[in-house]
């Protein structure tokens, strides 16, 4: 990346260039639109827009920009609800909403926060390490594009059955990739999810969330304004990465010696990205760029057409100015390449010299590609010959929009009628002390409830020194301002079994859980980002799941009063005709005036004798639960959504944190009360004694339902006895159920549960439970990981 390299820039290759003039005079030429993924009607539309056939380069641009991934053509009509179902109150703190690289929310004191979640599912299946690594790289560049400094990442992950060979192949690579890239960038990974379910076999979901902070004045957006301003591409060179489909364009080349097979995967370089982050932040600090856009999917096609169409005019580019890693690339391939660690910016001519000085400081390669024009056209030349001449809006924003047909699946009613309560397994519910105790141990040692530290310990959670909470706490918490303690909390959640049983309610439950997690940590939820992972939109039953989930999520956001600020849709997650469960992963961002008042999730050793309260109402809701899953059952309806109760519960938890009433809090979700109390005890190895009698009586429950039901809007808190009165006064005033369930017991080293069952009580030693709980994941992956590591170190 020295200046020398810049001087030895590529020499122009001689291609049989398909110019605009050539295209106009040869309308009959056969073009590989189908191989590039376009439909006949879409190709016809392109010809109609242009009034001629597209050139090879234009075809490349339209095909990638009109892909499902870039154009949201199947999802757009539904996603509109996120923009429509909002109130002025919800928009109050919103500085940038949906449509930009990431939404931006005001944090107060002149600070703002931006966050977004994206999928990198397919690349991570093909090449787990690089796929997951570049997933982090891509989402981090989205954050930089807003003018923000990235401060943390999170990864919601979903894999197939834990013992399936495919999971053994994919998981270690994905985890090392996330760690390898994120750790090298110096970004703490503060949470996420790990879910095992056979529906994700051959279709793992690797979602990545990044959060960044900025001062209000540093806010940047992706638009090219100001006629005469210069367009620059900087960062890594452009190579043949990730343009598998473009190889059909090779016919435009005379050269037979080029690599025959273009890979669909990209290799990332985290150290180049780190330099790019610092370089961009200096550009923002010195106010040297007018507009900026990262290069991700669809590379230069996306960056030029989006920058141009978001601005006021057009753009004129000379494509031979692009610095190449592989000089055999054709214009179409250069436009489609997904090489990592690149950015495009718009700079005024006066600032060009200062811009170059910043590039020199950081040793970043750059090349001036062209300038902003006023004619409303995106014109791209190759060695002076025009190969693209389009209205950028038709590429970036006015792509096809499909109202895909959808209908409720024929099997949905049967599925919902198959209640757990009426299943064979329900006839043998654990009812005495021994079987209830065993059921709790079985629950905690199931792959989905087990300790995930084998995974998260491969990520740096504390780098940067601003991590206030991270896995396994309910939310990840990051301090933004060291002086005041101002900070943010983040949680991502989705129970796809719920969404499978009822996509509308399932999406709302995902939001409710993420909201609850953020509030449990003590933060005020303010914004939502979603990553909607579904099967094929061309299947009307899958499309119904998607439509229902979006409708549910938009309705729930409206009710909770927090807006969706951005996100991502990943469709076609299916293999051999079998789709994944609908998986609308929801990330919620909360704010803290001072992160030092955060509420941790575990019982503290010094908190012996503190009172444990259960907040909320428990119903017999075992459909879709982890408890039912362990008994081979999936059917019925998910737990009832009660957003009013979620809001009240949130207020209680936030106020309790603000007033310093509680010392620990944990939300109830998968695995219900049994899982929550176990996790609180396992956190610091501090036990508890609880009694179920009053709960069973008040809510009319069997002991098994009391322990394992997954009713929503519930949380456990631990508080000093001196605070009990103040706390219960608060819950009573809000009319929210609070029940004293037991006490923290730091001496016993175990959990003791008494209740209305035969044998009256059971106890579980924490040491034994911890041993079993923490070995579930390592026992499967230690050997695999060691072998992979050994090969990697040999390099």
């Amino acid at each position: 990346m020295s200046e020398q390299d810049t001087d030895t820039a590529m020499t122009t290759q001689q291609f049989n260039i398909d110019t605009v003039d050539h295209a106009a005079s040869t309308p009959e030429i056969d073009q590989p639109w189908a191989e590039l993924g376009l439909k006949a009607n879409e190709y016809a539309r392109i010809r109609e827009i242009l009034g001629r056939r597209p050139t090879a380069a234009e075809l490349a641009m339209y095909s990638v920009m009109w892909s499902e991934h870039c154009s949201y053509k199947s999802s757009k009509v539904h996603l509109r609800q996120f923009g429509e179902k909002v109130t002025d109150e919800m928009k109050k703190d919103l500085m940038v909403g949906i449509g930009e690289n990431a939404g931006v929310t005001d944090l107060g004191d002149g600070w703002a926060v931006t966050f977004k979640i994206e999928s990198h599912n397919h690349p991570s299946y093909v090449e787990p390490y690089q796929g997951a690594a570049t997933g982090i790289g891509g989402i981090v560049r989205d954050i930089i594009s807003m003018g923000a400094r990235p401060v943390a990442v999170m990864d919601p992950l979903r894999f197939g059955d834990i013992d399936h060979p495919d999971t053994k192949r994919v998981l270690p690579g994905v985890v090392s990739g996330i760690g390898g890239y994120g750790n090298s960038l110096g970004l703490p990974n503060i949470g996420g999810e790990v879910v095992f379910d056979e529906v994700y076999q051959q279709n793992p979901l690797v979602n990545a969330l990044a959060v960044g902070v900025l001062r209000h004045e540093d806010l940047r957006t992706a638009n090219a304004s100001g006629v005469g301003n210069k367009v620059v591409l900087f960062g890594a060179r452009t190579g043949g990465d990730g343009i598998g489909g473009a190889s059909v364009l090779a016919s435009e080349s005379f050269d037979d010696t080029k690599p025959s097979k273009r890979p669909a995967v990209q290799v990332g370089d985290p150290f180049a990205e780190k330099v790019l982050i610092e370089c961009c932040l200096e550009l923002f600090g010195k106010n040297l760029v007018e507009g900026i856009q990262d290069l991700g999917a669809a590379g230069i096609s996306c960056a030029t057409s989006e920058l141009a169409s978001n601005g006021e005019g057009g753009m004129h580019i000379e494509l031979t100015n692009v610095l190449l890693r592989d000089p055999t690339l054709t214009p179409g391939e250069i436009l489609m390449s997904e090489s990592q660690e690149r950015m495009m910016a718009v700079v005024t001519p006066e600032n060009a010299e200062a811009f170059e000085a910043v590039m020199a400081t950081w040793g970043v390669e750059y090349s001036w590609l062209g300038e902003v024009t006023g004619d409303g056209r995106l014109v791209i030349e190759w060695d002076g010959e025009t190969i693209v001449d389009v209205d950028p809006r038709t590429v970036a924003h006015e792509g096809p929009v499909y109202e895909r047909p959808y209908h409720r699946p024929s099997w949905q009613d049967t599925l919902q009628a198959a209640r757990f309560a009426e299943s064979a397994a329900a006839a043998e519910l654990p009812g005495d002390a021994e079987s209830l105790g065993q059921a709790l141990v079985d629950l905690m040692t199931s792959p989905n409830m087990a300790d995930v530290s084998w995974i998260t310990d491969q990520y740096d959670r504390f780098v940067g020194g601003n991590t206030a909470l991270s896995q396994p706490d309910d939310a990840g918490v990051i301090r933004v301002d060291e002086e005041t303690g101002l900070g943010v909390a983040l949680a991502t959640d989705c129970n796809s079994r719920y969404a499978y049983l009822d996509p509308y309610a399932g999406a709302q439950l995902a939001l409710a859980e993420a909201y609850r997690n953020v509030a449990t940590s003590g933060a005020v939820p303010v914004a939502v980002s979603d990553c909607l992972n579904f099967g094929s939109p061309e299947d009307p039953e899958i499309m119904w799941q998607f439509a229902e989930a979006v409708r549910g999520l938009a309705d729930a956001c409206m009710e909770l009063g927090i807006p969706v600020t951005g996100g991502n849709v990943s469709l076609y997650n299916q293999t051999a005709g079998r789709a994944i469960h609908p998986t609308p992963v929801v990330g919620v961002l909360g704010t803290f005036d001072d992160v030092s008042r955060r509420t941790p999730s575990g019982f503290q050793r010094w908190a012996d004798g503190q009172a444990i309260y259960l907040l909320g109402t428990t119903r017999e809701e075992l459909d879709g639960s982890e408890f039912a899953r362990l008994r081979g059952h999936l059917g019925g309806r998910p737990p009832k959504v009660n957003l009013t109760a979620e809001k009240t519960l949130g207020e209680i938890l936030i106020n309790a944190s603000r007033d310093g009433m509680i010392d620990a809090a944990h939300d109830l979700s998968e695995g219900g009360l049994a899982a929550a109390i176990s996790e609180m005890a396992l956190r610091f190895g501090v036990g508890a004694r609880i009694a179920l009698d009053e709960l069973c009586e008040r809510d009319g429950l069997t002991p098994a339902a009391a322990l394992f039901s997954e009713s929503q809007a519930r949380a456990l808190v631990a508080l000093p006895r001196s605070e009990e009165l103040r706390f219960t006064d608060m819950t009573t005033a809000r009319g929210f159920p609070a029940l004293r369930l037991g006490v923290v017991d730091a001496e016993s080293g175990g959990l003791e549960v008494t209740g209305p069952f035969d044998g009256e009580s059971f106890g579980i030693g924490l040491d034994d439970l911890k041993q079993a709980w923490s070995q579930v994941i390592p026992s499967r992956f230690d050997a695999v990981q060691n072998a992979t590591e050994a090969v990697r170190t040999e390099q």
Partner: protein
Amino acid sequence: MPTIVVEVMPKPEILDPQGKAIANALPHLGFTGFSGVRQGKRFELTVEGEVTEAVLDDAKRAAAEMLSNPVIEDVVAVRVEED
């Protein structure tokens, strides 16, 4: 004892961050004559006894399936070296 040498390189069109880092470091240390670096890896498989066609085929299979990642790497050589 004969040794089978397997050489693996990152695919030419794939970014090679290590090679790039070395290429950038060379001029700083006074090595100015090189315009690019690609870094691969070399395996030495020791064979007890004679290298038959079957053994060599095994080595080729191991090279393709285990020693390289076919998504991002190419096996560029599998050859026998007598000591």
